Each structure stands twice: as C-alpha cells, then as structure tokens.
C-alpha cells in the first residue's frame, strides 16, 4: 500500500473518557477510491473513531491525517459526514437545509440533490421537525450524498429504519458513489451491506482486530463477511 494513496491515515489513536478507553492505539489506513466498512457491535468504538475523523471529537493521543491535514476547517470542507442522529436544525424545512449545504459546501450539487429527493420521495417544503425517523435519515443521506466530497463518512446509515427505507438508502449509496472518492461506512448490520465493501475492518474494544479486502477475506475464510462477523462477535 503506497503512502500517497491513503486519504486517511490513523496512527496509534487513543481516546479515553475518564477511565474508560474508547479507542486504544488504533491504526488504520484508508486507500483513496475505496468503500470501507468499519464493522463492530455497539460500543466497540466505531462512532468515537468517526467523530474524530469528522472533527467534532478530540483524541487523547495519536494522530489522524485526512488528505494531508489534521481534522479542521479544511478537512470539514472535503469530508461529507452523516452522523448517527438528526443533525439538521429543527426550524428548517428541506429547502432551508439545501440552501445551507449549498452556501457552505462548494462541492454541493443541487441537481443531484433534486434527483435524490425525488428518489426518496421528499419535497422541498417539508418541515424537518415533522419527518419520521426513516425520512429524516433519508433526508440527511440526500444532503450528504449530494456533495462531491473526497471522503464520505456514513455512521450507521441503515440502523433503525424499516426494510423499504433500508433498500432505498442502500440504492442511493451505491448509485451515488463517485468512483474516485472514498467512503467509510460503519455498521453492525453486515448482511445488508457486505456486498458494498471493498475493504472491511473489524473493530472491537477500540482496536482493529482484523482488516483486509472483503473478497479476499471471503476466499481465505470461505465464509461471508456476515458469518465472519458472527464468528468474531457472536
């Protein structure tokens, strides 16, 4: 793996909350142009890792480099982040949210947003506050995918939504993935997502315990990633 090809480099990343260690000297490099799945159960450190990458959480020790820079204003301009919660302001309608993304992210593509809104069956005049959980998730994903970002970070994009919405979300992700961008997706719902990954990394108690090319792992272990996940965490 060549160094210059890594969009993300994480070295000895440690995060402690008081006595609790959420990330423990974690190392991970992510190659440009790949879809990587960060797989682990709740509480394994997935969201902590992602929040540090998104620039809203500070590490205790170690180093994170995204496209050559530590998380900050520049990385926020090239990272499109889908948090595991509704992050839009409650007073907004969808139009406001689109305006805001257009104002702040130069890589925002309104045409793409329109396509996605149609696909998700969302209207610009809907109020954010009145949307169901599944619809909020779809709206958030619409905004995040409408950017032509270098790095997409999706935290549990299909957790807690109904099967129909889940399929729509998966379709939207695969249909809108730009081949020269990189996507980092966390999930514990491996079965639904495993065919989307180039690479997978299993995270447990704040450490990466297994990582590699998804197809290679399938071949080596002669089992699906989902079964491998169950074997590791089951």
């Amino acid at each position: 793996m060549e160094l210059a090809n890594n969009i993300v480099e994480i070295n000895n990343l440690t995060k402690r909350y008081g006595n609790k260690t959420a990330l423990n000297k974690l190392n991970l490099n992510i190659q440009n142009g790949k879809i990587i799945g960060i797989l682990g159960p709740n509480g394994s450190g997935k969201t902590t890792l992602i929040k540090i990458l998104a620039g809203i959480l500070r590490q205790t020790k170690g180093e994170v480099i995204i496209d050559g820079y530590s998380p900050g204003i520049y990385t926020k301009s090239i990272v499109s982040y889908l948090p595991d919660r509704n992050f839009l302001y409650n007073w907004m309608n969808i139009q406001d949210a689109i305006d805001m993304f257009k104002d702040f992210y130069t890589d925002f593509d309104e045409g793409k947003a329109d396509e996605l809104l149609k696909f998700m069956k969302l209207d610009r005049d809907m109020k954010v506050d009145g949307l169901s959980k599944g619809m909020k998730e779809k709206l958030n994903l619409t905004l995040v995918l409408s950017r032509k970002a270098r790095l997409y970070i999706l935290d549990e994009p299909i957790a807690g939504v109904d099967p129909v919405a889940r399929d729509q979300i998966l379709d939207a992700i695969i249909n809108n993935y730009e081949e020269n961008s990189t996507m980092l997706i966390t999930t514990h719902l491996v079965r639904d997502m495993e065919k989307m990954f180039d690479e997978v990394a299993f995270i447990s108690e704040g450490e990466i315990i297994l990582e590699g090319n998804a197809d290679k792992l399938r071949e080596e272990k002669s089992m699906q990633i989902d079964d491998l996940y169950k074997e590791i965490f089951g």
Partner: protein
Amino acid sequence: MNFDNNLPIYVQIGDYLKRQIISGKLKEGDKLPSVRDTSKELKVNPNTVQRSYQELEREKLVFTQRGMGTFVTEDKDVIKNLKKGYANEIIKNFMEDMKTLGFNSSDIIELVYEIIGEEK
C-alpha cells in the same frame, strides 16, 4: 441477485455474467452493461464489478475497446468451451449425487433415457 454463498462476490458476478452469455441473453459481440450500470443493478461496489470484468477478460470471454466499452467475445469456440465447462460441472455433480444414492453408470443412463422418453 443474492450473493449468499461463500465465494468472493467478484466470482459470483462473473458466474452471473457467464450464465447470461451461455443462455444467450448476452450474444457474441454484444456490449456488456457498463460497470456503473451493473453495479447499480446488482447493488454491488463498482470496484468489485470492475474486478469481475477483468477476470472475464483474462478468461478471454469478453474484450474491452477503449472508450467503447466491454463486449462479449466473437469467438464461438470460447463460448462453446464455457458452455461445455458448465455442462461438465452439472453432470459431474449429478453423477456424484446419483452414486451416493446407489446407482451405477448404466443405471443412470437408463434412468435419464426413460425421463427423456417421458418428456417427449
């Protein structure tokens, strides 16, 4: 399409395309759907689809023309061999199953013959 066996996904996509070629859904010289479209249709990572196409190309089943796309080979022999390969595989599995049931080769032929007769 479900990718629920333990083979690598690029192998499964390759298999899916090969079956389309054998069944004639994709004919000699036909253009394959783009990597992007196949990716969308099968909901698989485009990099994985790309790899399947490369594998098929290595097996000389398809060829890529720069800027035009990927096409099914026009070499009939290659397709014939592919077909034969799949047929051999099916027959081999069938024979093994039959043998575990206690049939010998001549019993099997007799049975097959009977069934073909009924179909007519």
